[in-house]
């Protein structure tokens, strides 16, 4: 009887040590379990009639947490559940603007920052535009993403022009639509778009993403400048430098070039082209 009385306390005392073993076996910073029991927004809608908005919030929180944990602890890894989670969220609440806007970023950005599926990101924004035809911000983002990620300047220009005609849209959208069409995929237009997104950003995450994109454009400009210096070196010496460090004693650079993350720029002595270092967070696959 005395043993029986002590048993609950004894067993409870064991819990922390067993939990530590469980934590050790899973890894201290393991992401959440990749399980999604219901894949259809329509199915989830029927589960809690009248509470769709609350469920949409829950799925949106799950989307954000999933993205965060995959990004922080799993190194991206393709984000396989991102699409279904966002789909369920916007099926439950087609008016949740933030889910379209952030969802498009999560889906479109290159890995590991995002899922690297810009077609899905643009499709999500198209769905948002269909659900909220008078929302100029969603249509603007659709135009931006069509231009920035799908490089379809004519379509992007048309969408931006449509956005410019909606109530509340800023006047500069119309001039931007013209620039996109006339100047195609030039970097100056991309820079202008990201600067607008940075200015419009309502929170640090969105602002940070726009800042990162502008940093990529800065790094691309710097790589072009360095390529020009390589050409100048070749013009002076009759050969290309073996490495970018050779530009320093030649007086063309004060020190070996690195980007804002202190990652050296990549140089191909065969072509003389300078690009962003592969190890840099600014590197984007072509």
């Amino acid at each position, binding site marked *: 009887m005395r043993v029986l009385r002590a048993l609950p306390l004894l067993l409870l005392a064991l819990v922390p040590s067993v939990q530590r073993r469980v934590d050790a076996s899973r890894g201290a910073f393991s992401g959440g379990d990749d399980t999604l029991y219901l894949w259809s927004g329509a199915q989830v809608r*029927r589960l809690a*009639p*009248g*509470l*769709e*908005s*609350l469920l*949409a*919030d829950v799925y*949106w*929180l799950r989307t*954000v*947490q999933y993205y965060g944990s995959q990004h922080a602890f799993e190194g991206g890894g393709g984000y396989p559940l991102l699409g279904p989670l966002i789909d369920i969220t916007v099926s439950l*609440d087609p*008016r*949740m603007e*933030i889910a379209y806007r*952030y969802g498009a970023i999560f889906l479109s950005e290159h890995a590991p920052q995002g899922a690297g599926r810009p077609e899905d990101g643009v499709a999500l924004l198209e769905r948002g535009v269909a659900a909220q035809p008078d929302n100029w911000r969603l249509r603007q983002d659709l135009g931006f993403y069509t231009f920035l990620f799908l490089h379809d300047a004519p379509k992007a220009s048309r969408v931006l022009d449509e956005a410019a005609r909606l109530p509340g849209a800023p006047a500069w959208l119309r001039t931007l639509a013209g620039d996109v069409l006339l100047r195609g995929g030039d970097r100056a237009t991309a820079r202008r778009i990201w600067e607008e997104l940075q200015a419009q950003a*309502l*929170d640090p*995450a969105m602002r940070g993403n726009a800042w990162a994109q502008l940093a990529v454009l800065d790094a691309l400009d710097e790589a072009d400048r360095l390529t020009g210096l390589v050409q100048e070196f070749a013009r002076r010496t009759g050969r290309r430098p073996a490495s970018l460090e050779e530009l320093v004693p030649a007086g063309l650079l004060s020190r070996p070039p690195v980007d804002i993350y202190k990652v050296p720029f990549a140089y191909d002595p065969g072509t003389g082209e300078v690009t962003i270092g592969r190890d840099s967070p600014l590197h984007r696959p072509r």
Partner: protein
Amino acid sequence: MGSGRLTRIAAVAANTFRESVRERVFYNLLVFAMLMILSGLLLARLSIRQHEKIIKDVGLASIDVFGLVIALFMGVSLVSKEIERRSLFPLLAKPLRREEFYLGKFAGLALTLATNVAAMTAGLLLTLWATGATPDLRLLQAVFPLVLGHLLVVALALFFSTLSSPTIAAVATLCLVVAGRLSDVVRNARTVLPDAPAWLVEAVYYALPNFRNFDFKDRVAYGEAIPAAALAWVTLYAAVYVGAVLAGGVLAFRRRELH
């Protein structure tokens, strides 16, 4: 209805209200609902933006669900408990008609629910205020229809409890509530059941209590103003449906043999 009759109904209602607010389960549900509303604060912190909307969604859903639970479980036990405890018989021996007792019970629980919803709404507004958001009084445009829906649940629960045991009454009421919340599925039933006769689908659609009518949570959480006409129509719908169910309940209660 004479003033004497109204006085008797009011007396039963006041007594029912006093009894209901003494129930421990009422306080448990209220505390849990408040915790749910406050949990919106935590959930909002986990999200990117839309903090205010999440707090509103969680708060309104809590008012909806906990109001429903209180209406359902208190509604089915109101009359049956009086019969079980045999406290009904001395009451009916007094100059008190059965319908007066029945309507008084309904009014008492309605008052309890209104008090409960008022407390939860105050909790939601305070939560919004605590986060720095403006306590939006337009939330009342979503809360008021929810109360109407709760009243309909009470009427249904009372009706079924006069016909059967509290358990069966609770199941029957819950089934109607779920079916009524899925009224859009019923209306579009012919898309998946093309052979179903249109008149039957239509009849089922109009016969079921349409609980979708009382749901303005989503629109209000997005800051949309609900037109007064829409609220008036919903109020009229609730009055008609609650009136019909109460009348049916009174008839059933009159005929019920009490041993």
